[in-house]
């Protein structure tokens, strides 16, 4: 998972205060928000922190150091800072930050931006506020404690004096960075918890929003790259005669071979550079390349699947052990066993990977890219060019979706390498086929679960083995099995109150590049767990919702580490973010209520329920489905309840749950990447379909639980419960159980 970094308030002040003592004085007025514009920071200056400038015209500039990919961070981040600062929403200006370690962790994955940085961002706002208060107090000769910040100004009630933020800038420049700041109490919030409109709404509805693929640089060439169909393959022979005769083609360049392990490096291949994208693509089609497919030439996903299923049946390495499952199986009245399979998936964001790069006069490189992690882009580009990462400037554009794909900067390194070799700025645009065939795929997985029930239908024993090739294989060629980090994603954090439990992991070798996809291993672990619980409910003759609550047991905090498991809790403490079965059960009750669980349904309809905690947030989903006359599964409606603790922007949380509903449906119904002879078979939205409007449910109803707790993640946790809710609903409607995804393979989509 992502590198975890959480600053204490003191560390925050130490780090950000180092630059000096005053507010950043931005002396230049600039036009509309441009990604990467950081000239204000070059002005004179220094900071209470790196996230806020107060200009003497009163405009508050806020740096968004995280990437916007649809989750709404460019709206939510300034909500937090502006709120603590008492800045008025119409007087703030958002600036997209460059990649720079001064911002701390910028890796926008793991649903971390709010859950890990809420305090950091509040501190940024509060320390700016306190400096302005100190400046006003000093100017007026009154105690700071008697001054308050309200509505973009500082007020002193006793004297009736007020001064706007802008008027205090020069006085504030002499103030020290406040050592200790306090946060507002929730009843004082102006923006936190409010559904502010998205900041980029106008740009996004008028064609003015800039994504990585939209970058245009003077003198720029357009590149399209043919890569070996198998990961790690190399060029055996190349004939580019036909390519060079195509009008507009300016160069053909062979990239360095892929590395082993793949890391975030380019995959190698042959690039065609041209005056426009079309000529580059035409030139690429005309290449005559013979490949040596290399070590993964034999990869066949169908036979691999059989091996993986067998691994999940065999005893694996034990990662959590409670009681004695074997004894409990021996005592059980009923034994039930099931196997689940889920294939590789591609993130397939609407904007394929794309980046532009140019070499700078000082031997550095400047890139513009739709990246989730500009610092890892800096690092990777520096490595490929053999320069220091301080010489790599990364401008972060908007991301046209990402879902984990764009946390890997291989495509950015391609652009940088080509710009250097070509002696021209270069933009690399992946085709959809490139994206689906040459990405970092979500891992294929096989799971086997066995349970023992007593005569009353109580589950007394649970043995679960999971097997999948690890994301670790992308970074370590010898990695052969699930890592502790991956097993912490919906596996060892099993919340069920079952007296005997053994969780095991089975090893598997990767033959494609494996990477993160929205909610990662939680996708398949929740699919198996939540499906199997549903199976047990029917076996016990119980209502699935009631049985789920029975398995969750009494309200308590579950600690997998107490039972021998390695568990990181998404990088945050179990004290602040417990696995709280009471809160999980409340989500189940709520979503069941919303869906009218137990109501009389139209003939042929079924309801299915699933609940899953991931990224420190619990989401429960109910699906209502039926089967059409044509034999296809119809998802009529989805209900979702989410407990994400404190919520910044309820409408963005709802939007994420709606989007997760569709994303989850896509992987439940359609999503599957297969491989033959080392090469990915699927290539575009015809062979790798995603849900369209005509399959979208009539409604996706979302309820946000009102819980006074620190924030959990939001971007990812909506996805895992969707597929099992649908599969459980399908069982309720038809009595047929499907244990592998996608449902398309069962003829249902």
């Amino acid at each position, binding site marked *: 998972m992502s590198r975890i970094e959480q600053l204490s308030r003191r560390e925050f002040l130490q780090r950000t205060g180092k630059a000096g003592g005053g507010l950043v004085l931005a002396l230049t007025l600039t036009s509309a928000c441009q990604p990467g514009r950081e000239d204000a920071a070059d002005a004179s200056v220094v900071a209470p922190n790196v996230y806020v400038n107060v200009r003497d015209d009163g405009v508050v500039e806020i740096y968004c150091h995280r990437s916007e990919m*649809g989750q709404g961070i460019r709206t939510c981040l300034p909500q937090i800072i502006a709120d603590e600062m008492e800045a008025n929403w119409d007087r703030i200006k958002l600036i997209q930050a460059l990649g720079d370690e001064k911002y701390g962790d910028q890796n926008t994955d793991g649903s971390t931006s709010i859950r890990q940085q809420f305090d950091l961002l509040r501190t940024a706002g509060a320390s700016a506020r306190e400096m302005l208060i100190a400046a006003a107090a000093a100017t007026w000769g009154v105690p700071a404690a008697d001054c308050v910040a309200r509505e973009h100004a500082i007020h002193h009630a006793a004297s009736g004096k007020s001064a706007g933020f802008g008027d205090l800038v020069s006085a504030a420049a002499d103030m020290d960075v406040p050592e200790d700041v306090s946060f507002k109490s929730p009843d004082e919030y102006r923006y936190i918890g409010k559904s502010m*409109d998205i900041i980029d709404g106008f740009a996004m*509805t*008028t064609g003015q929003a800039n*994504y990585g693929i939209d970058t245009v640089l003077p003198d720029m060439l357009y590149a399209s790259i043919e890569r070996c169909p198998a990961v790690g393959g190399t060029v055996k022979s190349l004939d580019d005669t036909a390519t060079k005769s195509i009008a507009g083609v300016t160069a053909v360049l062979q990239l360095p071979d892929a590395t082993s392990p793949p890391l975030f490096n380019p995959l190698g291949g042959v690039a065609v550079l041209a005056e426009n994208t079309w000529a580059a693509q035409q030139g690429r089609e005309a290449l005559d390349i013979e490949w040596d497919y290399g070590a993964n030439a034999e990869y066949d996903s169908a036979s691999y699947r059989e091996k993986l299923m067998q691994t999940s049946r065999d005893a694996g390495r034990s990662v959590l052990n409670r009681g004695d499952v074997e004894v409990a199986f021996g005592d059980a009245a009923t034994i039930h066993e099931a196997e689940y399979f889920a294939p590789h998936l591609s993130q397939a964001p609407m904007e394929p990977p794309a980046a532009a790069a140019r070499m700078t006069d000082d031997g550095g490189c400047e890139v513009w890219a739709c990246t989730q992690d500009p610092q890892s882009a800096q690092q990777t580009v520096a490595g490929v060019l053999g320069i220091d990462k301080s010489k790599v400037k990364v401008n972060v554009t908007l991301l046209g979706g990402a879902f984990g794909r764009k946390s890997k900067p291989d495509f950015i390194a391609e652009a940088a390498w080509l710009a250097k070799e070509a002696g021209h700025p270069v933009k690399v*645009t992946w085709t*959809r086929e490139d994206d689906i065939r040459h990405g970092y795929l979500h891992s294929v997985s096989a799971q086997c679960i066995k349970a023992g029930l007593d005569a009353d239908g109580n589950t007394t024993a649970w043995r679960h083995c999971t097997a999948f090739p690890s994301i670790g294989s992308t970074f370590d060629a010898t990695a052969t099995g699930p890592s502790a980090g991956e097993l912490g994603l919906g596996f060892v954090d099993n919340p069920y109150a079952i007296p005997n439990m053994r969780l095991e992991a089975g090893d598997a070798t990767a033959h494609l590049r494996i990477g993160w996809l929205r909610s990662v291993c939680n996708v398949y672990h929740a699919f198996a767990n939540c499906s199997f619980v549903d199976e047990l409910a029917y076996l016990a003759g119980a209502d699935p919702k009631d049985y789920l609550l029975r398995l969750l047991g009494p309200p308590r905090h579950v600690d997998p580490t107490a039972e021998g498991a390695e568990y990181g809790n998404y990088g945050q403490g179990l004290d602040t973010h417990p696995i709280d079965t009471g809160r999980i059960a409340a989500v189940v009750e709520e979503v069941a209520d919303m869906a009218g669980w137990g109501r009389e349904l139209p003939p042929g309809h079924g309801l299915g329920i699933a609940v899953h905690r991931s990224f420190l947030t619990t989401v429960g989903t109910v699906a209502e489905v039926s089967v059409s006359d044509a034999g296809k599964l119809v998802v009529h409606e989805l209900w979702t309840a989410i407990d994400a603790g404190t919520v910044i922007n309820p409408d963005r949380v709802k939007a994420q749950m709606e989007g997760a509903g569709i994303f989850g449906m896509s992987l439940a119904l359609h999503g599957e990447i297969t491989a033959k002879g080392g090469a990915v078979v699927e290539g575009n939205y015809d062979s790798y379909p995603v849900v369209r409007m005509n399959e*979208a449910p009539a409604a996706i109803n979302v309820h946000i639980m009102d819980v006074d707790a620190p924030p959990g993640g939001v971007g990812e946790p909506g996805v895992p419960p969707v597929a099992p809710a649908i599969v459980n609903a399908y069982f309720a409607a038809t009595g047929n159980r499907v244990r592998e995804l996608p449902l398309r393979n069962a003829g249902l989509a």
Partner: protein
Amino acid sequence: MAFDLTINGQSISLDVDPQMPLLWALRDVVGLTGTKFGCGKALCGACNVNVDGQVVRSCMFPVSAAAGKNVTTIESLSEQGDHPVQVAWRKLNVPQCGYCQSGQIISAAALLERNPNPSDADIDNAMSGNICRCGTYTRIRAAIHRAAEDRS
């Protein structure tokens, strides 16, 4: 070979490969990047533009076929960005990443031209060629209904 066409009200002469898809002519030659590339195979609708009143997928529409025609892209759907569809999109905060929304808006505006008061089924029919990987479909439906109300 040069082709004369009108793009967003301006006459323009494009000297490019006749087979070049209108999408790349717009983006790389004319410099209008509001129209997006999503699949290149007429599968996703991200590249939708309006040609003489018809929605076309510009990624599979050769520039030669646009000769003598009027092309409208998202940049000029309205002068101030206040077409009822754009306004409704903002009222309901439809966009997530926003990338598919140029194409969605072009399709929705054309739907309302021919059917001022579409049902959900009409919307599903008209909009199923536009993929939104972020999953904004239910909001798009609601926003089209809202735009229909605002127009009437």
